[in-house]
């Protein structure tokens, strides 16, 4: 592994518990493994009522009338609430995270199948659900808009007639790059390749669905809300704005979360309904959606119809990349992305290549489908961007008759070019791509694989080798550029060392399974030398943690990880002053060894961080001007995003008779800068690669022509199992981020971003004998068979 950079060296075995970075078992796992996790649905409060939501059975209809009388008379029912009733309190609509509005409960029309129409509050979940059957809604069914390509047709039905002056289904236009400069390089290029690509609508499908328990105390006016949120602080502020509740009287608690993947970033109507129900009934109210509700109504991902174009010289020098995108945003623009980035970070579609010009033009439309857009570990649309560039680079390689690895190596941004400003304005902080690519090729045995493939082709067997190389932009973000509804994307962090030398660190970010309780303890441990086992990590409760924007877009380590390192350094600086008093030397004469200060040149005269903690809280004098206690707080505003990269190689076999794809091998070499806990990183990568197999081969939220969702259960919406994935082969290089305090970059979404194009490229490579240049996901056996017969079709 000669390509591995220095800095990662001595990782300890699991049971050795490193004081700082290294492999160690996750601190949170004992409670999960023993079934002692505490999720929202585990919350039981005295007198708690249960809420169930009636959803629209049709995609587009005017509501003529709602009769709730039978439901109200049903046993155990305490309240039935409709949109009209919410409208009286001005609560029928709420803002989305993208400056659009979304109906909490429909008042005028329903705009997608599964939209919230009314809710029932009852003594138990069964009574609430049964009463839904008794609500009589009269719908005047309207023609739906299902095909995004038809959304802007002059005769298309108008979906958003709630918006003043709206006469069509246009959502927004967006562009980036330099259109004229791109025209110029395309005009003089030897080779131009163009390819239509669809990244179909998929769903994050977390194991735990969304839900909330709202407990409003009418005496002290305090609302406690346990909810499945990846962003508890941002949600609290938005509730204050939406519901008019004072922010200091709102406590949002995000307990253990069973997977998020972006699905739990938005505020869903159900949360608001639970709050309203608690206020109305004076009781705690629980709402937990079922699996079908989660799949049909909560934040989807992707749904981009793209045309990619790439211009190059005959010898394989990429000159420019251009793309035109039609984005389906569903019935409401519920995208969760920084407000200045309506297409998220799709602007990184220029990938890892040093090119001369780039341009993107995007049109987003409303359709009669569930709202959402940014979810499923997508890194704010970098998933779509990487898929686009890595697919069209492969198309170019095909056109030029060049090996796709060679074409990539020829066009990489070179290490000395960093920081590198892309043609769409992104400043890549660091990167060293060739060693990462070479390591992946070495691990794969790339040349040998190509030989094997040639032999198999000669025998009529179908084997494919697919490459994807990605650069991500993660860790939103600098507050000068990035905010969500006016909330800057900086993160607070607090660290308190107790008198006995144990510590508690309080984070604004919330884990949904990423292992924060371990990773953040290790970050603090590395800085102040207290063992991770002695550091409690608190998160997910707005009353007990500092403000910050939450966990999504791989931002926890880039932003809050930096905050944790810096707050620990702040504590260490104070400890140094106290140590100088204890050792009766000047601060300048002290040297820090992880966990203790000693007098320079006299290692025997030392005090440990634990000694210092006791002194900080004990009797006796402290150095002049130093307060008692050993704690600090910080708010970290990142100066830039971090830019992890990776090289993925996938090997597939296709059964020529049945067109079934088997992922035989998958080599993933990730470079996420400094590695805090390699075991956790590998776990994240394994999960993301599995996601990639799902998206590439089987997942899609499809609709019929009436707008019925065809993926409303896990029987219909397939997610991969262990049987569809190979043993993952992971490797790494380390290119630290120059601006991040510990050089770390986010890794949570890398594998989800990088794996779909690697798998699709492998399938297309396998199908080369059939003259196939492209086929869209999901590459189900039927769709692969179509491609083999020259009849590849887009999935929508």
């Amino acid at each position, binding site marked *: 592994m000669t390509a591995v950079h220095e800095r990662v060296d001595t990782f300890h075995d699991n049971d050795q518990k490193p004081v700082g970075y290294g492999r160690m078992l996750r601190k949170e796992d004992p409670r999960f493994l023993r079934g002692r996790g505490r999720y929202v649905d585990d919350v039981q409060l005295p007198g708690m009522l249960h809420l169930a939501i009636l959803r629209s059975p049709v995609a587009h209809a005017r509501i003529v009338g709602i009769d709730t009388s039978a439901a109200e008379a049903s046993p155990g029912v305490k309240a039935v609430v409709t949109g009209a009733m919410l409208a009286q309190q001005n609560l029928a609509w709420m803002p989305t995270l993208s400056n659009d509005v979304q109906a909490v409960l429909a008042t005028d029309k329903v705009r997608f199948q599964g939209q919230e129409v009314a809710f029932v509050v009852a003594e138990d979940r*069964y009574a609430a*659900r049964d009463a839904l059957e008794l609500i009589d809604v009269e719908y005047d069914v309207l023609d739906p808009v299902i095909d995004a390509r038809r959304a802007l047709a002059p005769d298309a039905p108008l979906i958003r007639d709630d918006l003043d002056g709206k006469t069509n289904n246009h959502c927004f236009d967006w562009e980036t790059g330099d259109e004229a400069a791109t025209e110029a390089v395309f005009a003089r290029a030897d080779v131009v390749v163009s390819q239509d690509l669809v990244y179909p609508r998929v769903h994050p499908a977390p194991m735990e669905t969304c839900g909330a328990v709202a407990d409003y105390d009418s005496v002290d006016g305090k609302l406690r809300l346990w909810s499945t949120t990846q962003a508890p602080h941002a949600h609290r502020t938005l509730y204050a704005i939406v519901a008019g509740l004072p922010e200091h009287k709102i406590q949002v608690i995000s307990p253990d979360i069973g997977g998020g993947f972006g699905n739990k970033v938005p505020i869903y109507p159900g949360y608001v309904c639970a709050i309203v129900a608690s206020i109305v009934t004076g009781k705690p109210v629980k709402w937990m959606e079922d*699996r079908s509700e989660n799949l049909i109504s909560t934040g989807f991902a992707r749904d981009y119809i793209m045309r990619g174009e790439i211009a190059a010289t005959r010898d394989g020098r990429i000159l420019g990349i251009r793309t035109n995108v039609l984005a389906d945003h569903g019935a409401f623009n519920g995208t969760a992305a920084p407000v200045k980035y309506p297409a998220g970070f799709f602007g990184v579609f220029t990938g890892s290549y040093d090119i001369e010009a780039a341009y993107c033009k995007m049109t987003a439309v409303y359709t009669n489908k569930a709202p959402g857009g940014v979810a499923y570990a997508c890194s704010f649309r970098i998933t779509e961007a990487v898929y686009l560039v890595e697919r069209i680079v492969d198309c170019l390689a095909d056109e030029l008759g060049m090996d796709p690895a060679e074409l990539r190596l020829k066009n990489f941004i070179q290490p000395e070019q960093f920081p590198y400003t892309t043609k769409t304005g992104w400043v890549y902080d660091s990167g060293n791509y060739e060693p990462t690519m070479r390591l992946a090729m070495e691990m794969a045995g790339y040349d040998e694989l190509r030989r094997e493939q040639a032999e198999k082709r000669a025998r009529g067997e179908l084997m494919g080798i697919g490459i994807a190389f990605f650069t991500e932009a993660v860790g939103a973000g600098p507050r000068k550029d990035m905010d969500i509804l006016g909330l800057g994307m900086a993160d607070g962090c607090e660290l308190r060392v107790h008198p006995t030398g144990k510590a508690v660190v309080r984070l604004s970010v919330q884990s949904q399974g990423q292992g924060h309780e371990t990773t953040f303890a290790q970050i603090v441990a590395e800085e102040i030398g207290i063992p991770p086992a002695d550091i409690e990590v608190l998160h997910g409760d707005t009353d007990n943690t500092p403000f910050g924007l939450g966990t999504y877009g791989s931002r926890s380590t880039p932003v809050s990880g930096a905050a944790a390192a810096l707050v620990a350094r702040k504590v260490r600086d104070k400890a140094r002053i106290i140590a100088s008093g204890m050792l009766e030397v000047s601060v300048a004469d002290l040297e820090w060894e992880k966990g203790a200060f000693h007098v320079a040149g006299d290692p025997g005269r030392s005090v440990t961080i634990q000694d210092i903690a006791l002194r900080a809280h004990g009797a006796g004098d402290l150095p002049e001007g130093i307060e008692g206690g050993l704690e600090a707080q910080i708010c970290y505003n990142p100066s830039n995003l971090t830019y992890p990269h990776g090289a993925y190689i996938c090997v597939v076999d296709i059964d020529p*008779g*049945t067109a*079934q794809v088997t992922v035989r091998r998958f080599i993933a070499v990730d470079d996420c800068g400094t590695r805090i806990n390699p075991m956790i990183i590998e776990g994240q990568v394994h999960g993301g690669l599995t996601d990639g197999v799902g998206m590439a081969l*089987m997942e899609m939220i499809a609709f019929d022509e009436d707008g019925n969702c065809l993926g409303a259960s896990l029987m219909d919406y397939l997610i991969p199992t262990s049987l*569809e994935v190979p043993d993952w082969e992971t490797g790494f290089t380390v290119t630290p981020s120059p601006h991040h305090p510990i050089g770390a970059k986010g890794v949570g979404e890398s594998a989800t971003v990088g794996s779909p194009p690697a798998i699709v490229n492998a399938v297309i490579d396998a199908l080369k004998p059939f003259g196939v240049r492209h086929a869209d996901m999901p590459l189900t*056996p039927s769709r692969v*068979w179509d491609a083999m017969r020259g009849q590849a079709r887009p999935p929508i």
Partner: protein
Amino acid sequence: MQVPAPFEYERATSVDHAISLLERLGGTARLIAGGHSLLPMMKLRLANFDYLIDINDLHGELGYVEAGPDEVRIGALTRHRELLESPVLAAAFPIFADAERVIADPVVRNRGTLGGSLCQADPSEDLSAVCTTLDARCVIRGPGGAERVVSMEEFHVGPYETAVADDEILVEIRLPVRPGCGSAYAKVERRAGDWAVVSAGAAVWLDGGAIVDARVGLAAVGPNTTGIPAISAALRGQEPSESLYEQAGAIAADSCDPVTDQRGSADYKRHLAAELTRRTLRRAVERARS
């Protein structure tokens, strides 16, 4: 949590007790064994019954695989895992283990039953295709212990519909044993645990070098699992050969009636009917010879 509609629950203590409950409750009741198809349908409120009659305590009476001279008898409550691990079936009908390995996952196989699979009458159901291939007979018991025996063609009367009346219960499946038998099963699915895109079972009976009889059963290409008499007719008396398998595959493709859905296009399913017919026949012949 998906919440089913209200229902009452009874636990049968014997087959006769179960039948007496069915006599009383009629069409408002449903038997539950493994429950792996029924409970999801109830939770989605696609199936709503006033009563569930749990027959899992009847495994002592209805859970068995017994080899006789002329037939193998399998109790309706025999679980997938027992079928997968049965030495009797491994020796007589390896098609069972082929199929069981691709039915759902170990959790489902620990609970799901042969009788439940057949009574669900799902057009994509694997064991129905297996039983069709093996020309199984289904033993149905009614009030007073009266039993009748029907063929698979008679048993399945439409999608999700069987010949079992409201006051009857499927108690046994009988598989005729003839010499020189080889059998095999193959399935194409989008993912482990998904319903078949198409699956096929084949059984051949050889005498000397020639095919005495052959049967093919297809799933997911019509309203019920399909046995194809034309294939049997075409293969009888012939020497096994690749061209014969080709011919059988072509008949399979022509005989089935698939529809385009999320699992695949009708054309692709037709192609698979041919491909899997060829593959399973080839394998069945190999086994018959070995």
